[in-house]
Each structure stands twice: as C-alpha cells, then as structure tokens.
C-alpha cells in the first residue's frame, strides 16, 4: 500500500513539475525549435507583425521584410500597422490576446511585456537563441549593446531573453552652437559644470542687445518677461530616473517570486526612502532656484526645442528621436552627450521598443518570426535603419561599418545626433534598465509630476515624493 501511495505521489509530483514547469523553475521555452528545412518544406507560413510606427520606419521594415521573403518564399510577413500611441497598441494587443487573435510578433516596451507575461502570452527566446542552427553565437549575442539587450532579460533570475532590441533612442544635449562658439564656452559635460556654465551665460547675456546676434533673438526682452532659461530638460520622468541613477540612488526594483520569476504585476519603490535620490532632487532644485535650469513646462511649452528654437533657451536635453523638432532653430544646433554627475556613474537612459514573439503562434510561425527578427537586427540592417530613421544601431559592430561611419560625418542634424551618442557605446557610459512590471509606467509618470512640482513650484521635496507615492497607491 505504501508503495502504491508512493508511486501515486511520485506520479502526481511529476505531473506537477511538467505541467507547472514554468512556475517551479522560471520561464521555459515551451515550443519546439524546428529546423530551417522544416520551415522551407512547409506550405505558406504567415507571420503577422504588429507595429505602431510612422511611414519612414514602415518603409524600412517593408524593405527588410521583402528581402526576408525573397530568402524564404513560403513565408509571408504581414505588417499590421496599429493606430494611436504605444500604450494604445498595448491595450489593443491585450484585446487580441484575450480574443485568441494575437499577432505572431510585435514591438513594445518592457512594461508591455510584463503585462503580456501575466497570461504567458509571449515566449522566452532562449530556445531559438541557444539553438546551434538558428541561434546566435556567443560573439553575436555579445555584439548587442549590453544595456539594450538587458531590458528584455529582467523577468526571471536566470535572465531569459524575452525580447530583442529594435528601435532604440536615448537622450542628448542639444545646444545653441553659435552662442557657445562666439563666446568660447565649453559645452558642459557634468551637472556641476552646468552650474558654472550657466553662471557664465547669465553674465554674458546681460550685455547683449536684442537682435545683436541673429541666433539669439530678443534676448533682453525674453529675460525681462521671464522667458529665458539657459538649460531645459524635455522629460520630467526621464530626468527623475536618470538623475537617481547618476546620483547613485535606487529608483525601483523587481520583486522575485520563490521560483525565481519576477512578479510582473507589482514592483518595489525605492526612490521614496533613498537619500541619494533626495540629494539628486535637491541639487536639481538648487539649479532651478538659480534660474539656470528647468522643465519646458516652466515656460508653458511642451518641449525644450520650442524654447531653444527662438533663443529662449541655449541648451536642452531631449530624445535623440526628436532631432527634426529643431529644424526651425534660429541658430546652428550642436549636439553633445547628456550630462552626468560623476565619472563612475555615467548612466544614460534608453528608450524605444523591443521585439517579442507571442505564444499563440504555431512553432513554424515562431521560427519564421525568429528568423525575421534576426534579419531586422543584423549589423548591416540596424545601421541602415539608424541612418534612415535616426534611431541608434543596436549592435556594436554596426558602429564600425564604413557606410555608417561615413554617414556620421554628414552635415544633417540626424548625423550630428548619432555622432554625439556614439559616445555612449564606450567612454564609461552605461545604458541603465529600470524594473518593469504592469503599472511601472504609472510610477514613472507620477515621479515626473513630483519633479515638475519640485522644479517649477519649488515644492518641498519629501512631500512631493510622498504625494507621488500616495498617488501610485
């Protein structure tokens, strides 16, 4: 009897382990990696690729899809263009998942993937990555910029790959180059240098007449009406997280379940009790109080470019994807890496989407999608994509391709931006990754709102942070 019972227990335990393998040992690739021969031998395989991009990126994706379909004539890549924002696309995708109509692959942010993972709707890509025939060699895998690839590896302790980076941008410092050239000013590299540079700027501009320099507009008038701030920062949320990392603080962290899997439904706030985070806010508020620095909202503008363009600001840190917003500037626009606090913490933010594959797809569709993902991010394609769109190459080797290095020498603002941000691949810079869970985007928004009140309204720092925590709930 004991033996029988022991067998029953054993069998049940095995059933438990097999059926619930994911929850006991983290996510596993519960699909079979088929061979390329099996794919070629199949009837038509359709890969639906859901995107939310403008025309230029669509053209690039179409170009790569056509090349891929020539290589695999029985694979059809159908690009579904969704409307609205990325967040809208996530909501639509969840609808599709719930109605059993998920695409084969899509693009998204890490917090989107966290939401998809609530119902295991996307698969870890490790099965493909590690496959000797269709995967990556270790050299190829290391060729991805570490911070970019790390974003998709945060959902379990063993670092399963849930996504591959695709269209990535970051932040850069745009500045009035005419002004800096004329007065032999060094473009600041650190927040401390910004303080002294702004002091110099305020000293210089007080003696300039309206219209004396065509690239400075009506400077005295702008100062008089309170519409001149030397330095702006486009995104309050980006500034909040970046400054905390640069000041050595902690923003948020993931919560791990006992099985090593991240709890994708909640995370842990750290910034509210972190003294370095508070110091970052204090230092930024001091710069704002001196009139050196603020957010565009302080001038009732949505973007810093709207102030830099007519000479109401001389510097702005904004997305590298937004360079065309400076095309009507009254000055020559220069581009430099973003600021940092200390050389040992040169953290810079990454933005943009990653590629993932949905579990509802068949194994053949998954394989075709994986091969297409590989095509989208070959060194050559990621470089071409960058040159056409202004996004950054996601592979190290792409930065050394002759076509790309030649492009960087161009006169266009897009070339200048990519040239400046090439610095982030070395020189001690690191792309940081924040913990993602369903709802982490709300934390970021509320923290941004807190920072707005700290910088624009001079709010008490701890109270603003506590209020943000209260709103987050």
């Amino acid at each position: 009897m004991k033996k029988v019972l022991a067998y029953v227990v054993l069998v049940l335990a095995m059933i438990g382990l097999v059926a619930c393998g994911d929850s006991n040992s983290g996510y596993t690739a519960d699909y079979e990696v088929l061979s390329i021969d099996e794919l070629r031998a199949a009837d038509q395989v359709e890969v639906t690729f859901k995107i939310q991009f403008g025309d230029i990126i669509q053209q690039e994706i179409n170009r790569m899809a056509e090349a891929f379909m020539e290589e695999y004539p029985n694979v059809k890549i159908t690009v579904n263009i969704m409307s609205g924002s990325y967040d809208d696309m996530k909501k639509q995708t969840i609808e599709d998942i719930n109605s059993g109509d998920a695409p084969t692959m899509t693009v998204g942010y890490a917090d989107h993937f966290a939401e998809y993972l609530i119902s295991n709707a996307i698969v870890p890509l490790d099965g493909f990555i590690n496959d000797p025939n269709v995967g990556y060699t270790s050299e190829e895998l290391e060729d991805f910029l570490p911070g970019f690839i790390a974003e998709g590896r945060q959902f379990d302790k063993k670092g399963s790959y849930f996504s591959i980076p695709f269209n990535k941008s970051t932040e850069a410092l745009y500045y009035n180059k005419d002004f800096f050239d004329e007065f032999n000013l060094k473009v600041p590299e650190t927040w401390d240098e910004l303080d002294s540079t702004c002091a110099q700027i305020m000293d210089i501009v007080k003696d300039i007449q309206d219209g004396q320099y065509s690239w400075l507009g009506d400077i005295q008038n702008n100062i008089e009406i309170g519409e001149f701030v030397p330095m702006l920062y486009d995104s309050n949320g980006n500034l909040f997280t970046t400054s905390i990392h640069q000041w050595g603080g902690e923003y948020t962290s993931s919560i791990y379940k006992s099985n090593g899997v991240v709890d994708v439904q909640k995370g842990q706030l750290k910034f509210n009790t972190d003294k370095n985070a508070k110091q970052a806010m204090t230092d930024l508020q001091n710069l704002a109080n001196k009139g050196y620095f603020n957010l565009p909202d302080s001038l009732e503008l949505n973007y810093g470019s709207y102030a830099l363009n007519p000479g109401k600001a001389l510097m702005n840190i904004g997305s590298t994807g937004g360079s065309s917003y400076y095309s009507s500037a009254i000055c020559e626009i220069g581009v430099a890496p973003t600021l940092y606090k200390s050389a040992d913490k040169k953290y810079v933010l990454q933005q943009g989407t990653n590629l993932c594959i949905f579990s509802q797809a068949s194994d053949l569709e998954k394989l075709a999608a994986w091969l297409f993902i590989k095509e989208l991010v070959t060194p050559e394609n990621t470089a071409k994509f960058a040159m056409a769109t202004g996004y950054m190459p996601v592979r190290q080797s792409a930065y050394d391709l002759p076509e790309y290095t030649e492009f960087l020498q161009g006169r266009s603002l897009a070339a200048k931006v990519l040239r400046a941000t090439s610095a982030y691949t070395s020189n001690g810079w690191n792309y940081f990754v924040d913990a993602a869970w369903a709802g982490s985007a709300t934390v970021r928004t509320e923290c941004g709102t807190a920072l707005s009140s700290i910088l624009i309204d001079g709010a008490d720092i701890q109270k603003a942070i506590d209020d943000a925590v209260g709103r987050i709930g």
Partner: protein
Amino acid sequence: MRSFKKIFLLIIVFLFAFVLIGCDKEKDNPKKDDVEEITELDTKYTDQLKLETSFTGKDFIKDGIGEIKLVRVIDGDTITIRSGASETVNIRFLGIDTPESTGNIQPWGKAASAFAKEKLGNAVSIVLEAEGERNDTTGRYLAWVWYKPSADADYRLFNLEEIEMAYTQYTFSSSKYEDTLKKAHNRTKTSKLGVFGQKDPNYNYSKEVVVTTLLNLQYNHDKFQTGTKFSVTVRLARTVGNNMFLEDAEEVTIEQANGEYITGKGGFYAFSGYAVAYYREYLIGDVFTVTCQLEWEGQYGTQLTGLASPSRVDSTLSGEPEIPTLDANDLESGADLKPYLGHVIHLTNLTCDSIRESENNGTKYYTVTCVNNSGKKFDVYFSNSIITRWRVQDIIEVGKTYEVIGGVAFYEYANGQYQISMGDAPRYNNGVLNEDDLPRVNDVKEMI
C-alpha cells in the same frame, strides 16, 4: 494504519489541488470574448448612442462642450473650427487615429478624409465634447465630434461611426464611451474590411519606385495612383526649416496627356515634416536624388511628401537654381502666381501694406501683405522661427517697396490663394555672414 492511510489520502488530495490551482493560473488559455461577427459594415452602435450632455448656451473652448462652426476638414481625424468668438482652432478627434491623407499618405487615408468631408461638411450642426486632457502635444484641442446629419435627426458620434465604417481603429484610450467603442472596434474587426484588413482600391501598394521628373509630375500626375513612390533628381532652390523648394536638376522634355511636348524644369514644395532631419544636409544649388510621394491639390496644395532615401550630392550638376523675375505691377493678384507654384521666383515692386503676427509653440509667424502700384494685394509669408533670424520687423517697414526671392505656395486664405513663402534667412554672427548662406542674402531687398 488507518490514520496513516488518511494522511496519505490527504497528501494526495492536497497535491491534486496544488497541481490544479498552480496550473490554472499559469497555463489557462485566455477566454475568447463573445464578439458578433459581421461581413458587411453598418453603424449599429452609432445608431444607438445618444448625446446626453446638454450644450445649450455653452462654448466648447470655455466649457468643454458646445456647438461649433466648421471651418474645414483637414483629414479623417482633424478639423479646423471656430467656437464662439474664438479664433480658428484645430481639433483632433478623440479615441481614433485615421491613416494619414497628408504628409506620408497611407492606405485608406484619402477615403477617411473624404468620409469626414462628406459627413461633417454636410452636417446641419456639430457639437464638440471634451473629455480628459484638453490639448494634445501640438496644441490641438481634443474632442468627441457629434454631428447632426439633418434637422430632425439625432446627433451621431462621428468618432464611433468612423470605427464602424472601418476608416480607423479604436485607440483603446480610457473614456466614458470606452465600452461602446471597444465593442464597435471588435465587431468591425471581424469584417476584415477597410483598415481591418482590406486593401484600399485607390492606393498603389507597389514597392516599385517610378523614376521621373518634377515636370512630368506637374503635367501627368493623373497617371499615378495615390501612394505611388517616385525617384526624382532635383536641385535645392530654398529651404524652409526642414522643408524645401526643389526644381528639376536639368531641363527636361515630357509628353503631356494631349500628346504635346513641353520642355522646362518642374518645381515643387517638398514637405519633410517631422521625418529625420534633412535640415542642413544640403545647401542651395545642391543636386541630389530622393524618393517621395505626390500630394496633388490637397489641404496644403500640391507638394511632395514622404521624402526618403536622400542621396549624396552630385557635385557635377550642382549650381545656382534658375529663378525667374516677375514684376508685381504686371500682376492682378496672388492667383497670377499659380503657374509658378513650387518654383522659387524673384518678385519685384511689392510695397508693404501691413504685417500680421501670429505665434504657435513659442514660434512667431508673419504674413506681410504687400500691394503693387495699382493696389492689388500679395501675401509674403515668413514661417517657422526663420522670422527671428530675419528679424522681419527690422528689415520690412510699412510703406516701403521691396523685391523678394521666395517659393510660390498655395494657401487658401492668401490673397489670390497663392503667396510667396520665404525661405530660411541668412545667418549672421555679430555682423559676419555665414558663407553657406550667401545665396540667401538678397532674398529681401528694399527697392530704392
């Protein structure tokens, strides 16, 4: 022994429960929603939904709801209106995002725009209702658009009707109408019609790029479907921020529809919008090849859009653009500039009559209205913040006479609907000219 058995039985039951509970959470496939499947489009939800908020005596801008006067339909999800005594403002429809019909033209974009023109253009009343954020990042007001097709009809939610007619998808934004919009979206999606999976019969999906000339596009545009991609080799005549006036790099001869041949250079305004910055990539006179699409007599007139794949400069062909000279005293109105649409011209004898200033997102824009010697009016427009570089208030004075070099552009409210659109101003650094800008130096010149 009996208690031992009981313990084992309990363990087994516990393990079963564990397996079932554990698996249920991780492995269950999502339930398929009950969605009515359709094969033909209808307006089931639009017919049912009623406007329930009172708007009597209210103003949309001030109160968040109110009847408005439609000024124009820009595209499928954007209109220009006048609310009460306010100046004209642009409205972006909430909850939807129709394909583009201007700029980068997309399948179904033109159809969505035509649908909006038909329904809203013929409505006897339009009421706008705000919800949540009042403006988008470009300053446009956001609204639900209720329209009354006839005097005795109920108001209909146009945003919803566009979803049901498959001109747009629902953007799944939070709203008091969210439930209805979601149901409409999911139901319309099953039809696989319109934007939900049907090919736009009036759009050219071909990836083929037609190598042609600007002159051919001017005279033979009817031969090409919306969406056709062209490759043209052009000379930069002037830049307007990120946008450009382009002309054929060389004189060409083309056959017109009537069989007659014409020789010359075509010219177009090329709208780059917020695409990757071409800004400063090219200098005036540079020749290069670029792919583009054509927008013929659209909201912003005739222009090249969707610019992509710009080539390197062909230095063997580069050189000054050809700029014809016209005397405003020989012209009757801006309408006489029409033959030069898209070309950069040199126009003389313009006496400044008035300067009108406007501002958007911190950037100033000026329209200088000029007259010729018989009082006929012509508009000269300074867009973007180029004006700050020009400092137009310093270089143009009311009562003085000027000659200008600028591109001819369509603007429906300009005198004669065509105006001179000034290019970027020359840059000066403490009085010293940036040598790249030498060709622009005489773009505005007083006539003594």
